[in-house]
């Protein structure tokens, strides 16, 4: 019988990462879309780095950063009793950084594509920036929000290098489905590897398919 734990762990990781990343990504995307400052290209480049950086590079730096042997890992360990390497918490932090551009970039370009007068109209109606964001801007970029959520989710499911570096492939704790496939292949259990691979393939395909169907409908119904 195949062990379902890695698949459940993958889904848990993807859901938690996506929820937290959404809460962090919307304010970041809004801030980037609203402001134009000298160092904006630097911030944008940092946000986009995970798109091109080999996951092992990111994983390596995170491993070094969170290591309890020195700062800031030792402070986290001693003051907050949090250990981010070889733990599920560490996987979440690493996944959030690794999937950051997949959440921020679609939302940012969604916000930037809205007509400027939409938020100006809301301001002249006496509504605050926060109220305008929640009631006017976000509801009108639903496809971008959905794209950000789904891409982050699918990207986190598909992680390998980062989780291997920082999580260390501990069964039941940090061994997610993508790592389990590698393990099974190394042990020549092609049957099990095949099942894990197929499950990941079907999940990610269905998610992406649903996004394209939903966005197609939305784009047909709204015209600015």
């Amino acid at each position, binding site marked *: 019988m195949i062990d379902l734990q890695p698949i459940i762990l993958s889904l848990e990781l993807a859901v938690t990462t996506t929820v937290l990343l959404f809460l962090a990504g919307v304010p970041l995307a809004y801030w980037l879309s609203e402001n134009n400052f000298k160092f904006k290209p630097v911030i944008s480049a940092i946000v986009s780095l995970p798109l091109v950086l080999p996951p092992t590079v990111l994983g390596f730096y995170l491993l070094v950063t969170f290591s309890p042997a020195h700062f800031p890992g030792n402070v986290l360990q001693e003051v907050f009793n949090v250990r981010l390497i070889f733990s599920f918490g560490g996987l979440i932090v690493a996944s959030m950084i690794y999937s950051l551009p997949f959440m921020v970039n679609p939302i940012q370009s969604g916000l930037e594509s809205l*007509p400027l*007068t*939409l938020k*100006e*109209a*809301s*301001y*002249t*109606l*006496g*509504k*605050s920036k926060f109220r305008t964001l929640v*009631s*006017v801007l976000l*509801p*009108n970029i639903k496809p971008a929000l959905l794209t950000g959520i789904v891409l982050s989710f699918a990207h986190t499911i598909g992680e390998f290098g980062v989780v291997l570096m920082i999580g260390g492939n501990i069964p039941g704790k940090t061994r997610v489905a993508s790592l389990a496939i590698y393990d099974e292949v190394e042990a020549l259990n092609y049957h099990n590897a095949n099942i894990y691979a197929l499950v990941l393939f079907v999940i990610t395909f269905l998610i992406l398919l649903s996004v394209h169907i939903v966005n197609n409908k939305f784009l047909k*119904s*709204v*015209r*600015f």
Partner: protein
Amino acid sequence: MISLQLYKTLNTADGDLPLDVNLTIKNGEFITIEGPSGAGKTTILRMISGLLKPEKGHIKVDDVLWTDTESGYYLPPQKRKAGFVFQDYSLFPNMTIEQNLVYALEDKHDADYVKEVIEIMELEALKARYPQTLSGGQKQRAALARAIVRKPELLLLDEPLSALDAEMRLKLQDYILKVHRKFKLTTILVSHSISEIFKMSDRVIRLNKGKIIHDGSATNVYAKKYISGKFRFTGEVLSIEKDDVVYIVNVLVGNNIIKVIETDNHTAPLKAGDKVMIVSKAFNPLIIKIGD
């Protein structure tokens, strides 16, 4: 009473241009700002509403300071009692017309006021619909209603009618006048249409290259230029045909083709595509009402 003194550098196609205006507007006045594109009309409205900061100047509405660059005081647009109607309507596509209006309410318990405005603006049949299902005129009527729900003291209209056809324009002009009078608003309209200006405004400000060049009643501002015993139309030469000793010049004026007979020495400098003016002395013009 609104007094304003505004200075801002405009970035136009012809380079930087200083916008420098000084105005006093009486309460309840209907004032139109007119002028060529890039003259700074919209910029003035945006600075009054607080969407744009002037480089220098102040705005004072009924002794309340809205902007004062000297002391760095700047009342945010949310706190200014100014309704703004945009050329592109800017209704929120995620809300029905009624929801758009309710959103504009300052006090949520004031829902009766939304009902009243819906009635005045005759939006009853449209209130459950989404903006993208409405025509341009209906959208602008809804946008005007939404600005009214905010209970503004000052109504700012940025070419609200320029995207509409002639019939719709006339109807909306009536709606604008109706709310201007009913709610005792001070209204500032940006418009290009002379008939609109004559019909609506108490006062016209003509702007050119960032400066006020005329300020007065519509009759005063336009009298010299537009009112005379002559008919004067501008048009475009479509073709020139030779007919025996004369030439027939076909000129397109609006949607009409007018045939003008000319002699050789007059047509010589003309060619198809030229912009021309047709002038005729009218001693006894007839006036006939068309349609309703």
